[in-house]
């Protein structure tokens, strides 16, 4: 499935134009890095795709399903296909790692059993497999807030994996992590991209990381799409265009 975005615009109630007429097509299996200054509209962009933020105008298509036109029930079916990973991990701190991972399955299970925290055996074994995959099986029964930041983000990934998604939206997944841990997390995203063929849209702060992991980079500036190309196309001129005149290139190992 292809992700197609047409003239996507978001104006917040206070008048802030966070996204202005962004059009884009992302073929299946691409790893796309979204870069731009703080406030450029990166988070808004990702959130408009699964409608955590309701776009003001424009359309989003996932394959041949229109996300923007979906009613609430259809929207939930679409969201199941889109995993999301957050800068602040957004785990439920007081719940166990296992419960956090299982919650990724909520879109698939009937409401009543899920309210009693009951899951099917295959969901449970899936959860264990995904925890194993991110290397945290032995932490399954710990409270989520007893884990380090990097471990919490891996739980976040396991939660997204539970959805068996076709598309991953990652909103600065490594911005709260040290460089070494950041690589562990991004390596996992890369594996999901290369091995499982998931399309990945990932907001990143550092160009070096975009270079290392992404097939394609798009640059946002004040809500507008100002760059769309491969990582090596970003030379100093392009860099200044995206990040502004005063910016100097900061590299991260």
């Amino acid at each position: 499935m292809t992700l197609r975005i047409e003239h996507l615009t978001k104006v917040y109630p206070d008048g802030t134009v966070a996204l202005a007429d962004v059009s884009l097509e992302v073929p299946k299996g691409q790893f796309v890095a979204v870069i731009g200054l703080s406030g450029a509209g990166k988070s808004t962009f990702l959130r408009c795709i699964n409608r955590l933020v309701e776009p003001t105008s424009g359309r989003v298509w996932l394959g041949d399903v229109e996300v923007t036109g979906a009613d609430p029930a259809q929207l939930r079916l679409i969201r199941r296909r889109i995993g999301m990973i957050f800068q602040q991990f957004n785990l439920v701190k007081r719940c166990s790692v296992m419960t956090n991972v299982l919650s990724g399955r909520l879109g698939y299970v009937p409401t009543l059993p899920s309210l009693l925290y009951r899951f099917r055996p295959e969901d449970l074994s899936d959860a264990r497999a995904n925890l194993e995959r991110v290397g945290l099986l032995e932490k399954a029964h710990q409270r989520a807030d007893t884990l380090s930041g990097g471990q919490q983000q891996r739980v976040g990934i396991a939660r997204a994996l539970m959805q068996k998604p076709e598309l991953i939206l990652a909103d600065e997944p490594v911005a709260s992590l040290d460089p070494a841990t950041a690589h562990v997390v991004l390596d996992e995203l890369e594996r999901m991209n290369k091995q499982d063929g998931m399309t990945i849209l990932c907001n990143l702060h550092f160009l070096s990381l975009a270079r290392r992991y992404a097939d394609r980079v798009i640059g946002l500036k004040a809500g507008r799409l100002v760059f769309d190309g491969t990582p090596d196309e970003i030379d100093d001129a392009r860099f200044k265009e995206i990040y502004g005149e005063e910016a100097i290139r900061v590299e991260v190992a």
Partner: protein
Amino acid sequence: MSRSGLHSAFIAGVLAILPGFGHFYCREWQRGLVLLLGVPAQAAILYGVGLMWLVIPVGLVWVWSIWDAVCLARGGKCSAVVVCLLLLGVNLAAAWQVTQVHVPKLEPEQRNVIRQILLGLAKPDVAERKTQEQTAVGKYLVPGVGAPSSLTPVKRAPGEPTLKVSPTRARKGERLTVVGSGFAPNAPAEIILLGADEVVVAETKTDSRGRLSASFANPRYIPGVYYVQARISATVRGWQLSDTLKDAAPRMIETVYLALIGTALSVLVALPMSFLGARNLMSGTAVLRGVYILVRTVFTILRSVEVLIFAVIAVAAVGIGPFAGVLALAIHGIGAVGKLYSEAIESIEHGPIEAIRATGANDIQVVAYAVVPQVVPQFIAFTLYRWDINVRMATVIGLVGGGGIGYQLIQYMNLLQWRQAATAIWLIAGVVMIMDYASAVIRERIG
């Protein structure tokens, strides 16, 4: 820009004779409005409570306001601190008068009551010495037709006290003497003539060696054998709960349970409502926002009406008794815990909600997985806190007929049983302190 060019001090002063108008003239709208409404209102209040002499200082305020208007017209502005202090003083004086604050002159009777309560508090009636009853029986004969000619000796086990009646024969009105031994020493004793119409014929005490003696005139005239019993009640080793405590303790338990069920009922209603009263969950559409406002209004109304007022209404509706108290606590509690719950929900992290919603979960699942786990500890803490308050409230509710220890207390007081009342007060204080401590400990644990 100097105001003197724009405003004449004279006009301002003249206008200010009507409080506020001088200020309006100088465009000092806020102070003008306060004066316009405040000065007459203050005067009216003092008139209303019949303290006309206090209007004089208010007159000073009026004078000050004219002066202030003149200053304003000249471009200055007077400080209102002195005036505010003056008004505070006036109102304190008025309040003193209205509430009849005075050094109480106590009548001897009132002094006695206070003394009794203080004595009771110093020496509450919680336990008393255990007592043991001892009895011994002797007999005598009223001779005549149908009576046996002689008496068989009374059987008794060794070590038990004995009682001897002499003489062994007596007609009505003749004096009989009873002598007993083997009783507990220094204990009050009753001499009882047994039979269908049992009578106490004499009262006495045992001596230091456990002996007693007494005499009485024989009241019986029908021939036959009569049994005389000596009954003593001796204090023995050990203590037992006092009758007061046996009366009051179940009432105290009733109060704690009353608070428990009152709290439980309010939680039952407030719990689902609180989600509808949380702004962060209800901001989606206009309908949701309307529900949110409605729920919070209900909470505010229920919370701002005092429990005692609900209690008085409930007593009128369902009669005196613990159920009236339960209703009062439950209704007021809905507002109180509901507001706390809603605020707890409003203060949760939004991130997890977003994350769960992004998985395709529906609204109910979002609440169950992202909201509930975040608020449970606070909900428990607030509920315990409410129970704690409710135990205190429940005792007061009892005073207006809501059952429990409070009702018992007011009954003791109506019967002038001051020592019992003091005991009940101790009981309340003890239980409240324990609850207070226990709920603090639990809240800390789950925090």
